[in-house]
C-alpha cells in the first residue's frame, strides 16, 4: 500500500504537469498509471468478491498484464445495480449491505436495525465511513457506488490538479483565480485542498439548478462545492430523496411514498416557473451586489432557464468572470434535445456570459474524475485514467481513435472495482490539441442504444418535465 500511495502522489503531480500543457507524449504518467492499475487488480483479487468471481471464471490469477485486464476483467457498469430489487422493495437493508460488500473492498459490518429507506441506509453507511452515491436510470434501478471516505480526498485532489489550470485561465482575478493559479503553478494540490474550504470562492455566488441536497450523482458533488461560495441557492429548495425517485419510476407502494412523489412533482412540475423566477431574482441580486455567479445544471435546465427568461422578456447581465457549467442529460429529452452550439448561444445571450465562460463537464458516478470540454471541443482524459475504446462486440479496439463504447481503468478506484465498461458510445481522438493539452480525448458522447438514460436528466426527462 505504501508503494501505491507513493504512485498516487506522483500521478497527481503528473496530472498537474499535464493540465498545464507541459506534457507532450505519454511521459511518466502512463507507467505510473499502469503500475497502479496492476496493483489494483491484485488488490481487487484479494478484497473485492465480485471482481474475484469474474477473474476466477476467466481462469485468471493476480499475475496478469494490462491487456488481459482490458480484454477479460472489465466489469460492466450494471454491476453497481446487481442487487435484487426486492430487497429495496421490502426494506431489507441488511441484504443490501451484504450485496454492497460484494462490490466493495471491505466487508461491511454495520447494524441496519431501524433503517427503512434508501436515504437512511446511505446515512447509516456514511456514519460508518462509507460514502455511497447513487445514480438513477429511467427504469428506477439505482446504481450504488461505495467509496471509503478517506479515498474521496484522493479523488478531490486529482480533480483539483487536473481542473485548476484549466479554470484558472478563465476565472482570472480575485481570490478564486489566485487559488487556482497557485494550484496550477506552485502549491501541491494537497495544499490547495486546505484552502478550498468554506468561502474559498468568496467572490462567487453559487447558483445550482438542482435540488438543495441528496445523494444522487452530482448532487453529492454540489453539497461539497456549495459551502465554498459566498452564498449559494438552489432551483429546488427541497432535498431529492432516493425513495422519492425510486417511487416515481417504479410506482409508490404506500402512502408515504405516494406523498414523496406528490411533493417531488409539485416542486418540479407545478412550481417550475415559480422556482425559475426565484432563482433568476437571486442571480440578479448577486449581480447587483457585485458578485460573480457560478451557474451549474444539466443542459435541459439551462434550456428551461433561458426559455423562462425569454418569456419574461429579460436578459441577465452576470458580472464579468461569472461561469456556467453544464453536464450530462443531453439525450434525455427525446425531441427536445438542442444542439450544443444553440444552447451555448442562448445561455450567452440570456445570462450575459461569454461563450468561453460556459463550460461543459463529462463524468459519471463510477469514475473519479471530472473532465471539462476544452476550447477545441475535446474532453481531455487526465493521466489517472486509462481509457479503453470497445467495438460493437465489446472487444478492445486497437488505439483510441474512432467510435466505440467507452470504457476505462481508473487508477484511483481503490474501494470498488474501477475497470468499467460504460453505456456511453463515444468518438475519441488522440494527440496534441490546440488548447495545449495532449493525450486521448472524447469529442462526442451518446448513449448506447438500449442502454437506459441515467442521471438527473434521465429522471427529470422521464417525468415529462
Amino acid at each position, binding site marked *: 500500500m505504501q508503494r501505491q500511495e507513493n504512485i498516487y502522489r506522483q500521478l497527481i503531480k503528473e496530472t498537474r504537469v499535464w493540465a498545464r500543457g507541459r506534457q507532450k507524449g505519454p511521459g511518466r504518467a502512463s507507467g505510473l498509471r499502469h503500475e497502479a492499475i496492476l496493483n489494483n487488480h491484485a488488490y481487487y483479487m484479494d478484497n473485492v468478491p*465480485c471482481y474475484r*468471481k*469474474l477473474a476466477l471464471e476467466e481462469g485468471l490469477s493476480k499475475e496478469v498484464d494490462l491487456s488481459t485486464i482490458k480484454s477479460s476483467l*472489465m*466489469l*460492466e*457498469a*450494471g*454491476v453497481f*445495480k*446487481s*442487487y*435484487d*430489487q*426486492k430487497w429495496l422493495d421490502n426494506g431489507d437493508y441488511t441484504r443490501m449491505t451484504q450485496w454492497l460488500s*460484494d462490490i466493495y473492498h471491505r466487508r461491511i459490518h454495520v447494524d441496519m436495525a431501524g433503517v427503512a429507506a434508501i436515504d437512511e441506509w446511505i446515512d447509516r453507511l456514511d456514519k460508518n465511513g462509507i460514502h455511497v452515491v447513487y445514480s438513477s436510470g429511467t*427504469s428506477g*434501478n439505482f446504481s450504488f457506488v461505495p467509496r471509503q471516505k478517506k479515498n474521496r480526498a484522493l479523488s478531490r485532489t486529482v480533480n483539483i490538479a487536473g481542473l485548476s489550470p484549466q479554470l484558472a485561465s478563465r476565472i482570472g482575478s480575485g481570490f478564486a483565480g489566485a487559488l487556482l493559479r497557485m494550484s496550477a503553478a506552485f502549491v501541491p494540490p494537497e495544499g490547495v485542498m486546505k484552502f478550498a474550504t468554506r468561502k474559498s470562492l468568496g467572490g462567487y455566488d453559487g447558483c445550482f439548478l438542482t435540488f438543495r441536497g441528496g445523494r444522487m450523482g452530482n448532487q453529492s458533488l454540489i453539497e461539497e462545492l456549495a459551502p465554498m461560495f459566498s452564498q449559494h441557492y438552489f432551483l429546488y429548495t427541497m432535498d431529492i430523496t432516493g425513495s422519492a425517485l425510486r417511487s416515481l419510476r417504479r410506482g409508490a407502494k404506500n402512502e408515504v411514498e405516494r406523498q414523496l412523489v406528490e411533493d417531488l412533482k409539485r416542486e418540479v412540475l407545478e412550481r417550475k416557473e415559480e422556482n425559475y423566477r426565484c432563482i433568476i431574482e437571486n442571480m440578479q441580486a448577486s449581480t447587483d451586489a457585485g458578485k460573480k455567479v457560478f451557474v451549474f445544471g444539466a443542459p435541459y435546465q439551462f434550456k428551461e432557464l433561458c426559455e423562462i427568461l425569454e418569456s419574461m422578456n429579460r436578459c441577465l447581465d452576470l458580472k464579468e468572470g461569472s461561469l456556467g457549467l453544464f453536464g450530462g442529460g443531453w439525450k434525455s429529452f427525446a425531441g427536445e434535445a438542442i444542439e450544443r452550439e444553440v444552447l451555448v448561444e442562448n445561455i450567452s445571450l440570456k445570462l450575459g456570459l461569454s461563450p468561453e465562460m460556459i463550460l461543459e463537464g463529462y463524468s459519471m458516478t463510477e469514475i473519479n474524475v471530472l473532465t471539462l470540454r476544452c476550447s477545441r471541443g475535446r474532453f481531455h482524459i487526465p493521466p489517472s485514467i486509462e481509457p479503453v475504446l470497445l*467495438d*460493437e*462486440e*465489446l472487444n478492445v479496439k486497437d488505439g483510441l481513435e*474512432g*467510435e466505440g*463504447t467507452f470504457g476505462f481503468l481508473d487508477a484511483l478506484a481503490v474501494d470498488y472495482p474501477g475497470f468499467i*465498461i460504460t453505456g456511453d458510445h463515444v468518438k475519441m481522438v488522440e494527440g496534441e490539441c490546440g488548447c495545449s493539452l495532449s493525450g486521448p480525448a472524447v469529442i462526442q458522447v451518446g448513449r448506447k*442504444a*438500449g442502454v437506459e438514460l441515467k442521471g438527473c436528466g434521465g429522471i427529470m426527462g422521464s417525468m415529462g418535465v
Partner: protein
Amino acid sequence: MEALCNRHGLFRLKEELVRVPFVVKGRLVLPPEVSPESVREAFSRAGEYATLVKMENVQVLREPVIQRSSMKYTGEYIYQVMPAPGAYELIEPETATLADGLYRLGVDDILDYIESIVSTLLENYSLAMRVLELLRRTSEFPEAFLDDWINSTASSLNRETARQMIDSELSFMGKPGSQYLEGWVEVPGGAKSGWLRQKAVEIFGRNENMPEVKRPYVRAMPTRQLHITAGNAPEVPLVSALRAVLTKSAAVIKMPYGATLSGAFFAMAAVAAAPDHPITRHLSMVYWQGGDEAIEAELLMSGAFDRMVVWGGHEAIASMQSRTHFARAVYLNPRYGVSFIGNEAFSASLEEVAMRASLDVMIHNQKACSSSLVHYVEGSAGQAVRYAGMLQEALYRWDEEIPNFLNPLKKAQLKRMRRGRYIGAEWLVNTREGEFSSGVVVIQDEFDILDHPMCRLVVVKPVDRLEGALKKLNQFVSTAGVYPEERRLELRDRMLSRGVSSVLSLGHCENLYSGMPHDGMLVLGHLVDWKNS
C-alpha cells in the same frame, strides 16, 4: 422472371454489389447503376457502423457476410443497391379509382392471384434458390431455418389456406368472411325500427312517404394500408403483404433491414405473375430507413392511409405511436414467450421436459414473439439449477445440429449481463470454438426482460408456486408453454386474463394454423372497414 432478372442484373452478386428492385404500384423500379468504388467510398465516409448510405436516386444497404461453416463474420460485405422512391409515388390519393377497380374484385380473383404468384415462384425455382443463396450469405438465421422458411412459405401459401384466413378472420354473425369481402351481405334478423320513426307516425300519421324499416347490409370494405414491418423473422414482410392481398387492399409494405431480398423477390413475383392485376397495380414493396422524415412525414400525414400496421421493437412502436395520433393502426408490439414448469417435472423425466421446453426456445431461433425467453420453474433453487442443466444439454444438441449465430450486439449484451447486473447469477453456457452458442442462466433476483439478448439464452427463475409467477405475466407476454397439461388447464384462464394471448402445452408453441388469432386479434378484421348500408 429469371430472364428479366438476368436482363437487368438483379439478385446477382457482382463485385460485392446486388441490385435489388422495388415494386411501386405494380411498376418494377430498378436501381440506377452505381460503381462498387463509389459505394465503398460512400460507406467509408459514413463510418464503420453505417448500414445505409444514400446516393443520388439510390440507397445502398450494407450487410456483413457470414461464413456458414464457422457462423462468423468473414470481414466482407454485401451491398444491396436499391432505388429511392419518393413518398408521393406511394400514396393512393384516388379512392374512387380503388372503389371502381380493386375493391370490386371477388374472393376467387384474390385466390387466383395467390395461386398465380405461387406458380410463378415454383416456375422460377432456380431463381428462388439464387435469392436464397444470397440470403444465406448475410442472414443471421441459421441455414436450417432459412431452408424451412422457403418450404413452409411455399406449402402454406395456397388457395385453401388463403380462403380459411378470409373466412375465419372476417367472419361475422355466423357467416364466413369471404361473403363480406365479396360484397354486401344481408344482416340476419334485420334491424329494428327506431324510436323516432314510431314518434313520427304519432306526429305525422302513417303514410306512404314514411321511411320503412329496410333490411341492413354489411360489407368488409378494403382499405389503403401502410405496413411497417420488422426483421425478426424473414417472413414478416410476406405475412403483412399477404394480409393486404387477402383484404384486396392498396398497400405499401416497408421491408425491414435483413429481409429486403425476400420481400423484393416476392414483389417481383407478383409483377411477373400478374402485372396488370388490380392488386399488383396497387401494391408497393419498398425500403427506407425507419425514421427517415423525408419519406415518413408524408406517409404518416393524416389521410394518406386508412390503416397502418406496425411491427417492431419498443422504440419503433413508440415512435410511430407518437407520430400517428389519429390513424387507425394495428400495433404488433414486441412480445415474448415464457414457459411454466410445474414441480411435477421433477417426478417425471426431467430430460424429456427440458427437451420439450427447448422446442419453444428454438422458435425462429428465439427471435419470434412466441419464442420462450424466461422459464419459471416451480421448486427450490437447487431444482431450478438441475432443470437448467438439463435444458443446457438440450440446447447443446440443437447447437450441434443447427449452429447458432450471434451478431456483435448480442455478444456485447451477453458480456454486459455476465459482467454487470447479473454477475451474481448462475451461468450454464454452451460454447463453440470458445464462444457462446447457447446457455441457461438461473437468476433468483429481478430480471429486466429488456436485457434479454434473444440468442438461445434461457433465463430460469425458481418460484415457490407457479401461481406466484402469474404476476409476472402481462400484455407483453404473447405465449406461455406449460407443463404438465393438468396445470395448464388449471392456470390457463388466469394466465390469459393477465394479457397473455396463447397458453399452450409445453413444446407446442410454434404450431400455427390459417386464420389463427394474432396478438389477441383477428388481424384481417382490423384491416378492413366494416361498412353499413
